[in-house]
């Protein structure tokens, strides 16, 4: 069964676009990446899944339940960490976490302490006295303390130092091993690659591709770097299968998709000093989608 199913979800705020047409599904046990630049509609999609906003059209289900109509039932098994966390300033960390736990009909005291230890979080401090990164830690504990079946993270790593990021990812992997499905939105590719099995790429409110990380990397693109004898013009390399072409003096780089023989034929016709052919970085593939 799909844990999350999003069907042609659309959201307009008055006349301005939130998302245009978003469709994807997440299988049980996946760590699913949701990638796109700022303003592409990641948060809008997530906030609709959480019933914080109502879709203009389309629908979504979580655990097979409608995300708007059955929101409270779904929420019992969902943990959510927003990109910027805000809590009640006057409360102490432990008070806030207990307040949060009180909604889930279970005793989370031991788990709160265990998670706080793992993240180096001082439970006695007041929320208002916490730094941005420490608030984030409160958010992380709050999001997973009730051992949710689905963890939704909206650009969660902002404000965490590299060490904490690593511990956070370890916690997520541990939850994942216990059976939790994860939806991880980000515009930072490296972290998505580290963590996720599959990604959906969103652009201007539409999903442009959903694939596994390895398939995305293994999609036939080659990254070519050439050093020619003497200056070359852009037009010489504007051929079929060539994208992301840059020419600087006698240095040429481009992405190539197509038959390797055709490529080598083409290269053999030119006066070259040097050539390297490599697998492109994930970054470069993504940039390709956004051109």
């Amino acid at each position, binding site marked *: 069964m799909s844990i999350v199913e999003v069907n042609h979800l659309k959201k307009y*705020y008055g006349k301005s676009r939130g998302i245009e047409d978003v469709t994807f599904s997440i299988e049980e046990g996946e760590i699913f990446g949701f990638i796109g630049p700022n303003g592409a509609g990641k*948060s809008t999609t997530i*906030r609709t899944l*959480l*019933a*914080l*906003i*109502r879709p203009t059209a389309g629908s979504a289900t979580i655990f097979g339940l409608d995300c708007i109509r059955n*929101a*409270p*039932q*779904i*929420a*019992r098994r*969902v943990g*959510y960490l*927003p990109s*910027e966390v*805000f*809590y*009640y*300033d*006057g409360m102490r960390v432990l008070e806030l976490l207990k*307040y*949060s736990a*009180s*909604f*889930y009909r279970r005793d989370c005291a031991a788990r709160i302490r265990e998670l706080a230890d793992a993240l180096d979080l001082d439970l006695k401090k007041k929320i208002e006295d916490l730094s941005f990164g420490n608030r984030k830690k409160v958010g992380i504990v*709050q999001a997973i303390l009730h051992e949710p079946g689905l963890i939704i993270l909206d650009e969660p790593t902002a404000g965490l130092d590299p060490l904490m990021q690593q511990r956070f990812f370890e916690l997520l992997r541990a939850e994942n091993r216990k059976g939790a499905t994860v939806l991880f939105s980000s515009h930072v590719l490296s972290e998505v690659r580290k963590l996720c099995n599959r990604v959906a790429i969103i652009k201007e409110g539409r999903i442009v591709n959903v694939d596994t990380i390895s398939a995305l990397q293994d999609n036939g693109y080659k990254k070519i770097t050439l050093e020619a004898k003497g200056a070359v013009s852009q037009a010489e390399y504007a051929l079929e299968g060539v994208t992301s072409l840059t020419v600087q003096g006698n240095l040429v780089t481009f992405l190539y998709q197509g038959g390797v023989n055709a490529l080598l034929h083409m290269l053999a016709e030119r006066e070259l000093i040097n050539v390297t052919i490599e697998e492109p970085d994930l970054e470069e593939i993504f940039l390709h989608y956004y051109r």
Partner: protein
Amino acid sequence: MSIFLHELRFYRRNTAIWTASLCAGTALLFSMFPAFAGNTQALEDVLRNYPDVVQKAFGLSPETIGTVPGFYSFIVTFLMLCGAVQAISLGISVLSKEIAGKTADFLLTRPLTRGRVLTAKLLAVLCCVAATSAVSIGATFAMAFSVKDAAFDLGPFVLMALSFFWVQLIFLALGFLIGAAAPKIRSVLPISLSTVFGLFIVGMVAAALDQKDLYYLSPFKYFDTVGILQTSAYQTSFVVTAAAVTALAVCAGYAVYGRRDIQAA
């Protein structure tokens, strides 16, 4: 249940301060009563010199100002004004603080319907208002009995004292609707004050012009103290209006908040 307790804890100091201030105000105003009661004749003469319009606007009646109920009918207006500000502020802030403080995301992703969240919050501020009303009405009775110079008719006095609570209820409901519907309120007090004083002035103008139809526009006039003093009763049409306004504001608040989009912080 935990939201209810959370809100009570959040507002307990605020409520204590409002209650203490209202009691102090009640005591201060009543302490002036002996001065009024002692010189009934002179006072009546002074008041009669005021233009009719002013007398009506302030609900002053020279014949009764020297009695405890008559005096109270005059001062309760000001106490109601304060009570209304407290109630509408509570109503607005109990919802708007989650939006302004960006904590709505946290609260509304808990496993509760928005209706349950609203009910818990509404009950909490209702308790605050009820506590304030109960204590300050208690203070009113204590002061009235300590300053009285002669026995007085308890009926209209009780009705007027209770009006304080009814007015608070109406304004709590209005505040609740504003809090549910308004986009983002950074500062609650300016909105509370302008709404309360606006409606108060409408009531004063209506009274000055002797336009009973305009009374429907101002909750302060639903329990018109001059009328209560004369008839020892509330006027049914206004009681119905008060109940309808309160119920409608609360229902509209639920309807609006239930469907509203909670924008990203």
